[in-house]
């Protein structure tokens, strides 16, 4: 096996007769944009197998041999590889050839096609017609591939581990002890290799010297290939690479990423020094990993938000009671943060119901989590994987099994999917978080459009099952999930989720970009291709649905509803999702005594208490806590949804919960006064502390997102305002006016509410009205109400 070298365009010009030029761009680029005369095409997509994670991304020996023989390459050909990505893909080709024992010389064209052109090289669109050869490939014994163990040994000191990614990526996480030398650092501004002495100096400065043993890695074994070739060219002799790279390192069962191990570790600090000791011993970085087990470090140093998952939103009364008790006892602010008076509206010891049917509480200390988890275990509660890059709490119809109109009772499906992924280290660290929902009713109440993967009822050949959507989401780059025209039976859901997760893992990190959410993958591949790829990951034949059964969109469950079995469920309204731990516990008691021993959380931060027999309904409704969160709220209290916001969140630009509660109360009074309280059942105002959109502002009537504004003399907190989200019609809001000073927001809400009341057509919903009015009109309406100068931008036209 020969060490790869780097050759210049002029060298190639002079030697083009004696070498085989391999162009690794896509077939289309190769054909349409032209290529180096005589070059054969071996597209990178064909010799890089993104699906082979464990074994790395190398193709199988046979596949590689087949590719090369098809391209007419002989084992002793001198090869010069060319690409237009500053050499990364070309280098990847050379490395692959080296690993599979190519005998001839292997070289990289310095600066790639750009340099070739710059130096006066020609391109042709004549494609050679190579005669197939009988190329054989076999993994060589001395192939410079190392596995995880070897990397561990290297970390221990027998080699230098080099991270070839950017400093920013390195800062985010890296293999312990690794030094960082970005592959691009080896290039000058024109994309050619820097002069040898500069390279040597740069490498030496990081302790990377020719006589050392060196192990390279990146995220997906692409960028390291380039460094591998360059080091070979510089005469470094002992260079190996870790094909699994960081992806494998992180995903393997390293204790710090394994949720089960992690949980055990954290518990051990209960009596052994708590937070300080944990940070001391495990490093600051550990707070990142703790998300995997439901602990989020809050803005206040040393305190955590604890997220408890409730798959499908379902809790037993016993579980709910424990959650309430834990919040009441442990979610308490220390004196320095105000103690019992920490929050002027909610006091202390409260919990938050979330839009993913989780329960969150704040001020949790490391020394308390052992006790909390013990109580949780006794009743089967989990915080694991409620956060982090894992399969998040599976959202399901809050009325599953009790809705007279449902097609599928989704409870078993939700449970199976949750069980499948819980604590599985393989899926604990996906490229990004992974959000799933399952709806069984006809009203899309689990909000399919905003999930990475969603199931809504459908029929095929008379069988009940689900239609599948994929690639939705909100935060930056909102996208309505695409309909995959795929039907799955309830029994197959788990398998399909697994297939999507596998595909996501393979492709998600392959993208090498900032934006590895599933929706960008769907966008990039296109729905058709995504579906095809997915089919190759699933073990069953894909079918299309005959009929999809979603007819409507239900955005809450407030009120008293009749169940299939004749009993009733009562949807309570918990404005902003926040209530006292003691109150939650009291509701659990009532559910136990008067209902069926069960509580449900809904995706708009409310509660549903099911199974109330007629004779008990009355006494349930009379309980004081039920009255407080009464099933007949004002329209604004009913529609308000907020995220955690600045109170606890590191990112929040504006405070959300207290503010929103006050707004909702005032606005309800106002709506009474102007006589529209009876007209409007609910006005959905969603306030998110920042653009991460945790409060899902894009699906609200009035979406709000924290911002700041500044003029010549002042700056302050503000909100972006958008109108007209409508999941019934696959519509998100458009952000109309940015930076409305936060105190002007209620005036804006009043103005748009009144404008709609005055102007609406018979039966027209708020969202429909916003679509009928032009954006310019709406912008003016909002700006005028806000008393800001008429929206500076965006109003001038049409």
């Amino acid at each position: 096996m020969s060490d790869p070298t780097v050759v210049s365009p002029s060298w190639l010009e002079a030697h083009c007769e004696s070498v085989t030029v391999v162009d690794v761009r896509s077939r289309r680029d190769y054909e349409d944009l032209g290529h180096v005369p005589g070059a054969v095409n071996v597209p990178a997509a064909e010799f890089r197998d993104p699906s082979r994670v464990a074994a790395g991304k190398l193709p199988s020996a046979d596949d590689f041999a087949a590719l090369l023989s098809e391209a007419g390459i002989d084992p002793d050909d001198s090869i010069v590889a060319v690409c237009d990505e500053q050499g990364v893909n070309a280098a990847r080709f050379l490395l692959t050839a080296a690993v599979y024992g190519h005998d001839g010389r292997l070289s990289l064209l310095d600066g790639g096609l750009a340099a070739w052109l710059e130096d006066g090289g020609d391109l042709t669109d004549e494609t050679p017609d190579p005669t197939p050869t009988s190329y054989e490939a076999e993994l060589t014994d001395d192939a410079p591939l190392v596995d995880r163990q070897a990397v561990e040994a290297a970390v221990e000191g027998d080699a230098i581990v080099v991270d070839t990614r950017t400093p920013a990526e390195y800062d985010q996480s890296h293999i312990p002890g690794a030094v960082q030398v970005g592959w691009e650092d080896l290039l000058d501004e024109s994309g050619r290799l820097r002069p040898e002495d500069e390279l040597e100096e740069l490498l030496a400065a990081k302790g990377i010297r020719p006589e050392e043993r060196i192990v390279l890695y990146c995220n997906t074994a692409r960028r390291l290939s380039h460094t591998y070739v360059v080091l070979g060219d510089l005469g470094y002799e002992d260079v190996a690479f870790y094909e699994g790279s960081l992806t494998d390192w992180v995903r393997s069962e390293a204790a710090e990423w394994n949720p089960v191990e992690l949980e055990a570790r954290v518990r051990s600090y209960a009596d052994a020094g708590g937070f300080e000791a944990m940070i001391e011993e495990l490093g600051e970085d550990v707070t990142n990993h703790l998300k995997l087990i439901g602990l989020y470090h809050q803005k206040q140093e040393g305190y955590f938000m604890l997220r408890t998952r409730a798959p499908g939103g379902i809790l037993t009364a016993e579980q709910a009671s424990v959650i309430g008790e834990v919040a009441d006892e442990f979610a308490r602010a220390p004196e320095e943060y105000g103690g019992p008076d920490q929050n002027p509206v909610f006091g202390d010891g409260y919990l938050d119901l979330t839009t993913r049917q989780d329960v969150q509480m704040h001020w949790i200390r490391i020394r308390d989590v052992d006790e909390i988890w013990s109580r949780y275990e006794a009743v089967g509660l989990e915080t694991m994987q409620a956060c982090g890059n894992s399969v998040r709490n599976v959202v399901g119809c809050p009325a599953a099994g009790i809705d007279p109109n449902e097609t599928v009772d989704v409870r078993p499906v939700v449970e199976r999917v949750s069980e499948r992924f819980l604590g599985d280290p393989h899926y604990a660290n996906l490229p990004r978080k992974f959000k799933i929902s399952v709806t069984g009713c006809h009203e899309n109440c689990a909000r399919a459009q905003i999930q990475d993967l969603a199931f809504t009822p459908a029929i095929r050949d008379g069988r009940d099952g689900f239609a599948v959507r994929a690639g939705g989401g909100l935060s930056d780059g909102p996208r309505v999930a695409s309909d995959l025209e795929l039907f799955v039976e309830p029994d197959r859901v788990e398998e399909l989720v697994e297939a999507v997760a596998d595909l996501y893992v393979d492709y998600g990190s392959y993208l090498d970009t900032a934006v590895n959410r599933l929706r960008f993958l769907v966008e990039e591949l296109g729905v058709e291709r995504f579906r095809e790829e997915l089919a190759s990951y699933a073990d069953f034949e894909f079918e299309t649905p005959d009929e999809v059964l979603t007819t409507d969109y239900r955005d809450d469950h407030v009120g008293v509803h009749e169940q299939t079995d004749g009993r009733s469920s009562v949807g309570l309204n918990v404005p902003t999702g926040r209530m006292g731990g003691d109150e939650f516990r009291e509701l659990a008691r009532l559910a136990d005594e008067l209902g069926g021993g069960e509580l449900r959380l809904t995706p708009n931060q409310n509660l549903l208490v099911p199974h109330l027999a007629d004779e008990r309904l009355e006494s349930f409704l009379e309980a004081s806590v039920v009255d407080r969160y009464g099933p007949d709220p004002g329209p604004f209290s009913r529609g308000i949804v907020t995220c955690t916001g600045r109170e606890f969140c590191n990112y929040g630009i504006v405070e959300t919960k207290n503010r929103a509660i006050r707004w909702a109360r005032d606005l309800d009074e106002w709506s009474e006064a102007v006589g529209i309280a009876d007209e409007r059942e609910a006005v959905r105002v969603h306030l998110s502390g920042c653009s991460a959109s945790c409060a899902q502002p894009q699906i609200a009537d009035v979406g709000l997102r924290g911002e700041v504004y500044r003029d010549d003399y002042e700056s302050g907190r503000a909100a972006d305002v958008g109108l007209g989200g409508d999941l019934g019609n696959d519509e998100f809001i458009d952000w109309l006016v940015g930076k409305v000073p936060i105190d002007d927001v209620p005036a804006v809400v009043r103005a748009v509410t009144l404008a709609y009341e005055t102007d609406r057509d018979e039966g027209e919903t708020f969202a429909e009205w916003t679509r009928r009015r032009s954006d310019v009109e709406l912008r003016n309406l909002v700006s005028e109400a806000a008393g800001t100068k008429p929206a500076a931008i965006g109003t001038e036209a049409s």
Partner: protein
Amino acid sequence: MPADDRSATPAVPTKGVGGDPRESNDDVEEAPGKIWFRDLDEAVIEADRCVQCASCVAACPSDSIGIDAEEKRPTLVRMCTGCSRCWDFCPRSGLRYERLIQLAGEERGLEEPETYAARATGGPAEAGQDGGVVTGLLAALLEAGEIDGAVVARESDEQPLRADAFLATSREDLLEAGGSIYTQTMGLGQIEDLLADADLGAEPDLALVGTPCTIQGATALGRYGHEPADPIALTVALMCTRSFEYDRLRSRIESLGVDPERIESLDVGGGVLTAVDDAGELLLETDVESFDAAGLRGCDECADFVGGGADVSVGSVGTDEGYTTVVVRTNNGRSAWNRAEDALEATEIERPEPLERLAEWNRRRAESVLPRGFDPDAEVGITYEDHRRAYDGTDREPQPLNPARVHQYEEWC
């Protein structure tokens, strides 16, 4: 909104300039003026217009912007919340610095700025670049307890000519840091970290020394009462027509056959760049224009040679060798200046003609290069859309970001 409606919206440039899959989706229309870090990145950093003032780093309320160790450029290190503040305080994008300087002058300026020819007495005169005035002034203030420390610059040990931010808390520290380094420190963005490593007690008062753009950022943050400016009790601007990009400066010097390691000090004055070694031997003397390509490209858009936002500005222009030209511009600056009286030999002078000429030349250069209008009376904020309208189609237009450089980070929810 429905697609047909959308075509009716104005020809405002849409967000992003390519390379980001988020742009290809139009399920939600963005609010006018919305900014994420990536917009700053494309308009300023990728467009090679960043002047490394670190205002954005200091301005970000969620500490989402860090400093790329290699390139000394701002880079995203945590989730960006889209709050626009980095843009609002960046003198190369959202901050109309000429307006800021005018406002700050109206609010805090002396009736008539005072100009001095000055030099320090004792050690600082030796250590300093010109008259050692900055070193002398700060040392006197430190010793008088007026300030607890000063954010200055120190040459990197491994990489000569590279300036690292340094928190000086004693006369010795200041003497060590004396002299000019012609690359940026990003010091404004490191105040919190520097303080965390020092032990200056609660609410320390610091002096900040830096190029005029750095001072613009600091002054702007202070004007709006933003926390990062709280510790800054005095600003000192080093008059400047341009600073250099480290790598390019180094290779330019090397290409002239000079080993950067040997350079003890570099000086720019009267359009000439000189380098001397530790024996005082002249290594290099050349027209500073031949170093144009090594300069920060963003500096061409700066008209603030004199550092008009600072309490005190210092330069060499217009006074004799061994003296520093000093402009005291605010009450705050004047009281610091008076307080340090004993450490300085100062003569009040008329504004020197050469200074005026240089400032005038600097302004004309900026106006000829700036794609946007230069207007001290316009609003201080420049929106994304206005920026795009002015810059698109010029050689300073936004460049697509490199998605691999701008990592996406995990969020709270």
